[in-house]
C-alpha cells in the first residue's frame, strides 16, 4: 500500500518528465517544419543578385530594363516567345488557347492612318509604379529593389485582381496542374504569373532568355541591361535614340521601352 502510494507519488514526476520531453521533441519538430519553409522564403526574399555588373543583394542602385527596336523585330519571328517558353517550361495546356500562360507574346500592329505595319514582343513591363502591386491584397505581387516585378507563389491566393489591373494584359493565371517544371522557375496551379525578366538568369549575371535568343537567331532587336548605369549599352541607346513607353499616359514608368513606334 505504502509502496503503491510511494509509486503513485513518484510516478507523476516521471510521467510528467517523459511527457515534457516528448512534448518538447514534438514542439521542436513542429517548429522546425513550420520555420524551415520560412527560412527558405527569407532566402528567396533576400534575392542575391550578382547581376550583369556583379555584386550583392538586389539593389535600387540598379534598374533592369529592356529596349526593343521594333524596326529590327521581324513579323512572324517567334524566337523570343519560344525561348521564353523553353526557359520557363511553359507548355500549352489541355484547355482553350486563351487559358494557356503567355509570359511573352508577339503583337502585330498596323497604323490605322498610314497602314504602316510593325511587330513587337509584349511582356510584363516591370513598371516602377506597378498597378498589379498596388491592387494585390496579400502583397504577393511585388517589385524588387532592382525593378523586377514578381509574384510570390507562396502567398498568391489566385484572386486575379492583378490581371484586371495590369494595363498590358501581361499576366496569366495557371488554369490547370503543371508538369515538368524548371526547378529554378517555380510555378503553381491557381496562381498568377508573368514574365520574371528571367530573374534566375539575371541573378547569375546572364541575360533573359528572350534577349539571348533574339540576338542569336532573331533580329537582334532586344537590349537588356541596367538603365541606371550610364555606361551600359541600354542606357547609352536610350540616351541616343528616341524610344517610348507603352501607355506612357498612365505614368507607370515601365522598365521596357520601345524604339520605332
Amino acid at each position, binding site marked *: 500500500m505504502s509502496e503503491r502510494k510511494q509509486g503513485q507519488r513518484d510516478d507523476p514526476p516521471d510521467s510528467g518528465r517523459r511527457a515534457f520531453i516528448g512534448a518538447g521533441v514534438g514542439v521542436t519538430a513542429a517548429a522546425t517544419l513550420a520555420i524551415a519553409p520560412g527560412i527558405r522564403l527569407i532566402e528567396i526574399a533576400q534575392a542575391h543578385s550578382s547581376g550583369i555588373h556583379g555584386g550583392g543583394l538586389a539593389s535600387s542602385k540598379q534598374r533592369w530594363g529592356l529596349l526593343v527596336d521594333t524596326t529590327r523585330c521581324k513579323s512572324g519571328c517567334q524566337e523570343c516567345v519560344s525561348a521564353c517558353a523553353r526557359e520557363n517550361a511553359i507548355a500549352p495546356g489541355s484547355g482553350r488557347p*486563351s*487559358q494557356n500562360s503567355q509570359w511573352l507574346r508577339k503583337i502585330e500592329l498596323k497604323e490605322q492612318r498610314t497602314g504602316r505595319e510593325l511587330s513587337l514582343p509584349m511582356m510584363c513591363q516591370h513598371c516602377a509604379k506597378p498597378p498589379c502591386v498596388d491592387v494585390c491584397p496579400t502583397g504577393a505581387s511585388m517589385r524588387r529593389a532592382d525593378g523586377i516585378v514578381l509574384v510570390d507563389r507562396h502567398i498568391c*491566393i489566385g484572386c486575379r485582381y492583378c490581371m484586371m489591373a495590369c494595363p498590358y*494584359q501581361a499576366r496569366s493565371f495557371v488554369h*490547370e496542374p503543371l508538369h515538368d517544371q524548371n526547378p529554378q522557375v517555380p510555378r503553381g496551379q491557381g496562381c498568377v504569373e508573368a514574365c520574371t525578366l528571367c530573374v534566375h538568369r539575371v541573378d547569375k549575371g546572364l541575360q533573359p532568355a528572350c534577349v539571348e535568343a533574339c540576338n542569336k537567331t532573331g533580329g537582334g532587336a532586344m537590349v537588356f541591361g541596367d538603365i541606371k548605369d550610364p555606361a551600359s549599352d541600354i542606357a547609352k541607346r536610350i540616351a541616343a535614340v528616341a524610344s517610348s513607353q507603352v501607355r506612357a499616359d498612365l505614368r507607370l514608368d515601365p522598365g521596357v521601352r520601345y524604339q520605332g513606334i
Partner: protein
Amino acid sequence: MAAHIAYRQLGNRSAFWLLFLVSALFVAAGLAAHLSMEHHGHVITGMDNRIVWGLPHVFAVFLIVAASGALNVASTASVFGKTIYKPLAPLSGLVSLCLLAGGLAVLVLDLGRSDRMIVAATQYNFKSIFAWNIFLYTGFYAVVGVYLWLMLERRFNRYAQAAGITAFIWRLVLTTGTGSIFGFLIAREAYQSAIMAPMFIAYSLAYGTAIYLIVLLSACAIEQRPLGDEVLRRLKNLTATFVAASLYFAAAHHLTNLYFTRNQAVEAFILADGGSITQMFWLGQVLIGGALPLILLLAPGVTRVRILVACAAIVVGGLAQMYVTIIGGQSWPLDLFPGYTASSSFADGEIHGYTPGLWEVLLAVSGFAIATILVAVALRVLRLLPERLDDASLEPAHPAQQA
C-alpha cells in the same frame, strides 16, 4: 410600437424543410463545383486569361452589394427615426448578413488558391482596396452582429440607434469599397471612374431592399402573418426611389463616358454593338431591372403579387447589370497602342467572348442558396420576425395613411 411587438420563430415546418432541402441541394452542387475546380483547375470553366472574373464574380459581387442594401430598413428605423420600420429591422440585419455570407463564400470558393485563406487573413497590402475590403466585410459582420443584438436585447435597446448609425456608415464605406474595386482599374476604359462607388451604393439600395421585400412578403405569406398595407406602401415607394436612383447613376456613367472621345468605342460596344452584352444592358438592366419595376411599383392599383414580381425583376436586372459591368468591361480589349489595330495570340485588339461553364454556374447560384439556407435556419431558430406586422401593430399611435 416595437415594445408591443412579439417576435416568433417560423412555424411552418413543411415549408421550412422544403426550402432547406432545395437550398441544400444547390449548396451541395456549388461545393461539388468548387472541389472540381480546385482539383482540375479553372481550365474546366469558361474563364480564361482575358475574362478572368466570370459568372461567380457576377453573383458574388451582386450578393455583396445587395447585402449592404438589405440593411436599408434597419437604417431607416434607427438612423432616420422611422419607427414604423423598427419591428422590421432585425430581419433587415439578418438578411444583410446572410447575403454577405453567400457572396463571400462564392468569391472565396472561386479563388485559384482558396486553401490559402489564412494567407489572406494574415498578409495585407494596405494599398489594395481588396485588402481593405477584407476588413470592411469582417467588420460589417461585427458591427451588424452587435446592432442585431442591441435591437433584440430589450435592456440595451437604447444603444441600438448608435449601433445603427455605425452600421449605416460602415455599409456606405463597404459599398464604396466594392465599387472602387472597379473604379481603381486605371487601364480599363469601362471602369476607371470615381462614379463607380456612388453608383454601386445606388445599386445596393435597390437590390438589397428588393431582396428584403421578397423575404418579408414570402415569410409573411407562408406563415400567414399579417403585413400592413401602409408599411408595404412605404417600402415599395422606397424601392422605386432606389431603382430610379440606380437608373440615374447608370445614365450619368454612360453619358459621361460618351462625352470623352477616347471612351466612345467602349460605350458603343456596350450600348449598341456588343451582342449579348448590349442585350443584357438594355433588356436586362434597363428594361427588366429599371423600367418594369418602376411601372409595377408606381402604377395605380399595386398588389402584393405586383410588388413581388417587381422585386424579382430588380434582382434579375441587377444580375444583368453585374454581368454588363464585370464581363462587358473585360470583353472590351485594352488599348495598348492607340491609333493602331493590334492582333496577337493573346487576343489583343479583339472583343473577347465568354460562355460560362456548368461548374461556374453551379458555384455562382450556390451563393443565393447559401444566403437562403442561412436566412431560413435563422428565422426557424431565432425570434426575428414579428408575429403581427399589420399597420395597427406597427404604428398604433398613428392611424395608417392612405396610399
